[in-house]
Structures are given as C-alpha cells and as structure tokens.
C-alpha cells in the first residue's frame, strides 16, 4: 500500500482547492485509476461484467464517503504516528458494514464478488484520500473529494467493464447488445482480458493527454 503522495496531489493540497475543484479533480484530472494508478486489484478483478463493477463502485463510494467524513470529523484528535492505524480501523469498520449489507440484500452479488468486498479495506484509493484530504480538510471538502474520487473510480470501472462484457459475452448489464451470432471472446472475461483492456485504455488516455498538451504548446 503506497502512502507516498504524487506530486500533483501534494501541490494540490498546498494550493488548497475548493470542494468543487476537488470533486471535479477526482473524476478526470486526477482519476484514481487512470491518473493515480490506485486500486488496481478490483479494477482488474471484477470488471468482467457491468453489474459486479457497478456494485463494487457503489461499495467504494459508501466506504470512501463514510471514511473521509469520519476522519475529517476526528482530524483534530489524530496523532501523526497513529493516523494510519486509525484510517485502517475506520475503513475496515465501514467495509464490514458493506459486506454484511450485501450478504443480506444482494446475496448472489455478494457471492459473486466474494473476497473482493473485504479486500476494499486495502484499496489504496481510500487510504490515500484519508491521508491526502480528509485528515487535513473540513467535512464538506472531505465529502466532495470522496464523491469525486468515487465517481472517477466508477467511471474507470465502467469503461473497462463495458468493453470486457460486450466483447466477452455480447451483453451489457446482462442485456444482449451484440447479435447472438457474436463469437464471445472468452479471453475478455478472463484475467488476461482485464490486463489487455486496462493497458489499451490507459495507453489511449495518456496518448490523448499528451496530444492535448502538444496542441497547447
């Protein structure tokens, strides 16, 4: 789990962006998956279908908002050498709540996601937002930041899951979008498909940004 801040984040924290700026930043400019390269485990593991990807995104949204809010509220009490422990404790508590809620109300999805729900505890996106933002900022800013980052994560998962599910199964959210004659590319729903899709998408994002920067001179 990396605790080093990217230079972009450090300078952003120094300038102290507003809640709205943090919200926007999380979605694209500092997208947790494509720009910060955090949370790769769920990104690769549960993007073989839109349903599981969106359930994961919703779970991360809940945990990140709750953890950021909680940490922001108690930020005055944090001691530097115990802060990571407090972050982990807080995140673990909310993840366990999500895990039990899924088991109670979305049992099939809970079985399908299996250990990936408890593994949200070690998702670096959440602990990095606690460290970079919530431990230093007021409640509204911490919540705006959490929602922005979660939407960015959801967008990244959706982009990968859409490609993998359509090419791999010919469906989207379980609904058929390609004709039944489509020879489902099984590799796309298997782990190699996750790496290939993520790599190609990340390459395109970087290529697109590099071109835009060149155009600006």
């Amino acid at each position, binding site marked *: 789990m990396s605790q080093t801040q990217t230079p972009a984040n450090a300078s952003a924290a120094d300038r102290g962006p507003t809640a709205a700026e943090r919200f926007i930043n999380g979605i694209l400019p500092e997208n947790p998956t494509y720009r910060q390269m955090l949370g790769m485990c769920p990104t690769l*593991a549960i993007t073989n279908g839109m349903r599981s990807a969106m359930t994961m995104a919703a779970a991360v949204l809940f945990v990140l908002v709750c953890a950021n809010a909680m940490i922001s509220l*108690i930020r005055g*009490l*944090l*001691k530097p050498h*115990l802060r990571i*422990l*407090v972050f982990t*404790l*807080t995140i*673990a*508590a909310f993840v*366990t*709540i999500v895990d*039990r*809620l899924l*088991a*109670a*109300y979305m*049992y099939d999805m809970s*079985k399908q996601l*299996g*250990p*990936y729900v*408890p593994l949200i505890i070690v998702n670096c996106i959440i602990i990095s937002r606690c460290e970079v933002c919530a431990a230093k900022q007021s409640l509204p800013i911490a919540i705006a930041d959490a929602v922005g980052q979660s939407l960015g994560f959801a967008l990244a998962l959706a982009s990968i899951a859409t490609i993998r599910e359509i090419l791999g199964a010919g469906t989207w959210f379980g609904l058929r979008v390609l004709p039944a004659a489509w020879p489902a590319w099984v590799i796309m729903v298997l*782990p190699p498909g996750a790496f290939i899709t993520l790599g190609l998408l990340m390459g395109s994002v970087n290529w697109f940004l590099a071109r835009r920067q060149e155009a600006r001179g």
Partner: protein
Amino acid sequence: MRNNYLVEAWLVIVLGVVFGGALAGVQATLADRIAQNKLDETRSQIPALVPGASKEASSEVEVDGVRVFRASSPEGQLGWVIPCGGQGFADRIELLVGVDLRVERITGLYVLEQKETPGLGAKIMDERLFRSQFAGKTAARSLVVTKQGAKTDREIDAITGATISSMAVCSIVNETLARVRDGLLAALPKE
C-alpha cells in the same frame, strides 16, 4: 512511560470499542436475513446434491444437534444434505455435503461460503475442476488428498496451488461425516 502508551492510544481504543459495538449492531440486525438467504440457497441446491431429490419434498431435521436435510423425492427419502463448515486457508469454509441414505457414498458437494485466495483456493467452488469429483466417493472411510491423480474411491485430486484449501474441504467432510453418521442412520425411517 508505560502509562503514556495508553494515553497516546486512547483514540484507537475508543474507536475500536465504538466500531466493535456498531458492527455487533449491524450483525444482530442482519444475521436473520443472511441466515435465511443461506437457507434458501441450501434448499435450492438439494436436487443437485442428491440426484432425484426435490426441493419441495425435502425437509429439515435436527440430528444430534446438527441441522440436516432429508433429501427426498415425493416417493420417499433418497439421501441427506448436511451443512457443515471449518477453517480453510484464509477464512471459514461452509459446505453442503450430499450423501446417500445409508451414508455409504457421497453424492455431491457444494460450497456455500468461502473467502479463499481468488484464482487458487477459490477454485474449490469450481464444479468441473474440483467439486464434481466428490460424487461417488466413499462416505464410509475418510477422504485423502493426493497430488498423484486420484485412483481409489477415497482419493481426491488437490487443486494445483491450493493444496491447503483442498485438504481443508476434505477434512471438513471427513469430520462431519464421522460426527453425524450414527445419528443419521438412527434417524432413518424404519422399513
């Protein structure tokens, strides 16, 4: 000095207690619902675990303090489905074991809950790769895990890279059958 550590850590201790209490509350609220979900899933698996049995004709009974299912067709009982569990590699594994009427043969195995390593231990859920080999194995003697290819009716092929998970499943099955066998035989309908 020693006292200082406690003073320093008061926030961690307080949070630990508060979160612990909150989680206990969540568990107490949702436990019944989760148990019901598992029961529904168990019932829906009975026809696959004991061939010929139907969900509707089967009934739940308690034998020696263990809740088991009489897997039955409308014509009569065909076997048993026994929910059981034990420690796996990562966390508790919960299984359903199907056996024939006289507890001589295993007729099926289903994984109700597991948190084993994805890609390795989690393959114990895989029907074709792992679970299907239990059907037809002996229930009279304990099963052993082998890496050389199962030849006899008491050998189970380990999953590559998940020997401990494979062994955990076998030992849960062994212990459970040893514990409930006499009770099940005694509870059989008299012919």
